[in-house]
């Protein structure tokens, strides 16, 4: 029984890692599509929506089944509890990727270099948060998430600086208002993705130590 349960938990974990790969690819591709105005890439991100949803509910169903069949305890229980939350955060991250991809079409002609550098810089921070959160989950190790609070604060600051920059841009060029508004939205999505990475880190911390922490 215990052996089968462990096999099941290992497979669950592998599924979560696959889902994490898909979700972060969706976000990364969306931002790349935006920066390079690559409409095809943006479309492919949108096409992954169903696959992401399928991961979400399949992993959830499987995790619940493992809970009922084996009634795991201690680390096994915490791992499954963490997985049940983490997939929700991953799902959101992937969905934000899709949301960003959806506006790429409307942003092809008018934007300037300085706007994308702000977004790109922010995205690099956010995606490294996501990567570290996933790696910590994979290795059941919490050293990489120790500085998440500070790193998340930096992301917040970037978001506000993009906000201020974009607002002054709007004042200068009212014709660019729609597209500037999109940029504000995108920076908001990225900031949310950073928050979700922190949420994942909280669950990893719980999984590893048994203790609940609040990051930021």
């Amino acid at each position, binding site marked *: *029984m*215990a052996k089968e*349960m462990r096999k099941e938990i290992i497979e669950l974990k592998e599924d979560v890692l696959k889902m994490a790969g898909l979700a972060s690819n969706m976000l990364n591709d969306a931002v790349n599509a935006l920066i390079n105005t690559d409409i095809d890439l943006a479309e492919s991100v949108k096409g992954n929506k169903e696959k992401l949803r399928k991961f979400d509910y399949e992993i959830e169903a499987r995790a619940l089944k493992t809970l009922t069949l084996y*009634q*795991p*305890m*201690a*680390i*096994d*229980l*915490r791992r499954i509890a963490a997985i049940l939350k983490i997939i929700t955060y991953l799902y959101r991250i992937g969905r934000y990727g899709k949301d960003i991809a959806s506006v790429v079409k409307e942003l092809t002609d008018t934007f300037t270099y300085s706007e994308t550098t702000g977004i790109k810089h922010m995205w690099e921070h956010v995606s490294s948060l996501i990567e570290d959160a996933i790696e910590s989950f994979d290795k059941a190790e919490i050293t990489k*998430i*120790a500085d*998440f*609070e500070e790193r998340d604060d930096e992301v917040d600051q970037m978001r506000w600086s993009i906000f201020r920059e974009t607002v002054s841009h709007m004042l200068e060029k009212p014709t660019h208002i729609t597209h500037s508004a999109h940029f504000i939205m995108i920076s908001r999505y990225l900031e949310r993705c950073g928050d979700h990475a922190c949420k994942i880190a909280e669950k990893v*911390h719980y999984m590893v*130590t*048994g*203790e*609940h*922490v*609040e*990051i930021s």
Partner: protein
Amino acid sequence: MINGKRNQKINGNQKEESNNKNKNDYVIRCQDINLWYDDNHALKDINMNIINNKITAIIGPSGCGKSTLIRVFNRMNDVIEGCRIKGDVIFDGKNIYGKNVDVRAVRSRIGMIFQKPNPFPMSVRDNITYGPRVHGLYDPKILDEIVEDCLKKAALWEEVKDRLKDSAIGLSGGQQQRLCIARALSIEPEVLLMDEPTSSLDPIATAKIEELCQELKKKYTVIIVTHNMQQAARISDYTGFMYLGEMIEFGRTEQIFENPHEELTENYITGRFG
């Protein structure tokens, strides 16, 4: 920074709990209990406190000393030849292993339910009136009241109220076990010791006993030995994990099952043992 550090390791001997519990909350306190069956050292330096009106579960692999430990609480080991015990068990302010202790009085205040239901081969009613009669109670009206009261407390009244004169042996296993609980209650104990009380019962009878435990703890203190970890997790407030005669870890049940501090406990409850 992330706040919150992993709790400092505590060992089984309940340092954490004893810090924030009033002495009066403990119904039984074990101090440095060591027990031998001839030269088999079956209990090693057990220090634990049983908290009033709570359910305490004792878990651990076969042969680790669970039954031996709960038999310590009402001196049931006395009758075993070659059994020696050292240490104090403080119950109601007195060491039950002290001088001039009336063992019968101790056993009447600390009742015991065994793994296999063992009703006496007599009627349902007589099973329950037996104890009170031994204690000199003969008034049939009072005995009737005791019978009804105990059977109700044991959640058996509705099922047997029309067959009180029938032999207890004709009851189902689950009913027999609840009858044994009713019998134990008939002498108004303060503590109920249960040694794997549901291991010979089906899930429905088991569920009834488990519900009953929740009811009983309002009035009594329950100590239950179980091999079923889910059962311990479901019904108990505190759990002690034993291994090779030692109390490895003792704590709040949620903590033991969600986040055990000792690796041995973790290995045992996650099935990574041996």
